């Protein structure tokens, strides 16, 4: 398997990372090297093997539906790039 330049650019867009054509070319060669390593997996017959998502096969814990956190909006918004009146500011989405 080998990724084309267009594929690299499309993946970068899916990941929301702007990429120049020069960067895309370098990335393409790095990624293809890495995928060559990854391709070793394809030779293995894993038919009937249950995928392992996690080290401990546990189900998610449930807790009571109760308020456990205090309101710390001011502290959390103090680290935001831009806020106003308790809201996070972003460029206008709807014209």
């Amino acid at each position, binding site marked *: 398997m080998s*990724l084309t330049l267009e*594929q*690299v650019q499309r*993946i*970068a*867009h*899916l*990941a*929301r*990372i*702007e*990429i120049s054509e020069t960067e895309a070319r370098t*990335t393409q060669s*790095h*990624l293809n*090297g*890495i*995928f*060559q*390593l*990854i*391709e*070793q*997996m*394809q030779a*293995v017959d*894993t038919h009937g*093997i*249950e*995928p*392992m*998502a*996690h*080290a*401990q096969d*546990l189900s*998610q*814990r449930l*807790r009571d539906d109760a308020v456990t956190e205090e309101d*710390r909006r001011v*502290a*959390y918004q*103090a*680290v*935001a*790039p*831009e806020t106003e009146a308790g809201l*996070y500011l*972003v*460029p*206008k*989405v709807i014209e």
Partner: protein
Amino acid sequence: MINASLKQLSQALAAKQISSVELTQLFLDRIERLNPTLNAFVTVDPEKSLNSARLADARIAASSAGPLTGIPIAQKDIFCAEGWRTTCGSKMLANFISPYDATVIRKMEAEAGLVSLGKTNMDEFAMGSSNETSFFGPVHNPWDNARVPGGSSGGSAAAVAARLAPAATGTDTGGSIRQPAALCNLTGLKPTYGVVSRYGMIAFASSLDQGGPMAASAEDCALLLNTMAGFDERDSTSLDRPLEDYARDLEKPLNGLRIGLPKEFFGEGCDAEVMAAVRVAIAEYEKLGATTVELSLPNSHLSVPAYYVIAPAEASSNLSRFDGVRYGFRADDYGNLDDMYLKSRAQGFGAEVKRRILIGTYVLSHGYYDAYYLQAQRIRRLIADDFVEAFKQCDVIMGPTSPSTAFRLGEKAADPVQMYLSDIYTIAVNLAGLPGMSVPCGFAGGLPVGLQLIGNYFDEARLLNVAHRYQQATDWHSRRPEGMA
């Protein structure tokens, strides 16, 4: 005091031979003097540290101190600590002052009374094996300043090796505690997945990430793990188990210990001098009463390929939170919202982090999920099952931690695949979720060599016992680099 064990420091504090403030100042002075050479710390805040030390001294005076109260420690900059800049080695978080404490920080500081000396340098978002991907520049190995300390917990490793701190925290997703411990002559422990809370530990690959101690000895690691481990409601994968004293079995004799030697860890691909040191260490274990059994982990050669699908997949999801909206870096100039995301992430992440996000995005994308992600998860099962079989024949598995000693700065930086292969012996342990350690076992060309110990699930106390008895019989772990006085 600089080279004292945690137990000795604890006794000195209890006997009022030294105060926590004095001890903290001693290490802060060393950091000020030696850190410009090593770049092991990215943030120090002496006033904050000395305040914690004063609180610790008050606890000692009031006889409400725990065994480690007042002892200074370095914290890997992946752990959020309230009021401290917490960068994770990234431009993305270069100005992030955490509004809350990670559970590990809360347990160590507020509960155990340890004093944070500062935050240590690391590969960006813990993605790297050399500490060269840090936005804050590489860390230099105290054993040879032209070489890497390993990664991703490279700052923690260099700090403890040069005695800028008595001990440190690290995290290990594919070897990030064990490999730098090996390259810097430290003892490091990655616990069983789920033993140490991940709350407030900035996520890389959530099904693999695990925090643990890095120190000069197994005994120090045991005492530290006692303060770090425990169930945490705030971590959905934290295990609800009874608390343990990880130091309880340290002195147990090793008679009858069965050591498993996987043939895959003793084949090609490992530096000959490293392998020779490992074999001498195993012979030492035989003198201590252990027996060895050869076994096989037939799928271990697939651990690096499977890891480089699973870890990037989880990373691409975890790192989607860095969008320039709620915290972290936002680009200066942008057009619409999409452009803000694109530019903030392009400028905020470094090259290795971007590569892994792209790999993860690709393997999770439509049409490729089965061939890559599911296949990797199936192979993960095969790798974990190999260990289940192996532990039917032995109590602990041994081999090299890393295929080489510390490499030169820049030596592998241009070739990601070469860098990835430096974790060839450590990654399978994370995929299976097992506990693993690295223990100093000699030198090759003047550089430290690490012996890896792998235990069965929840066998931390035994691993620490196995490491401690070896350290009673050898002195590799007490060797210190020159020029760091």
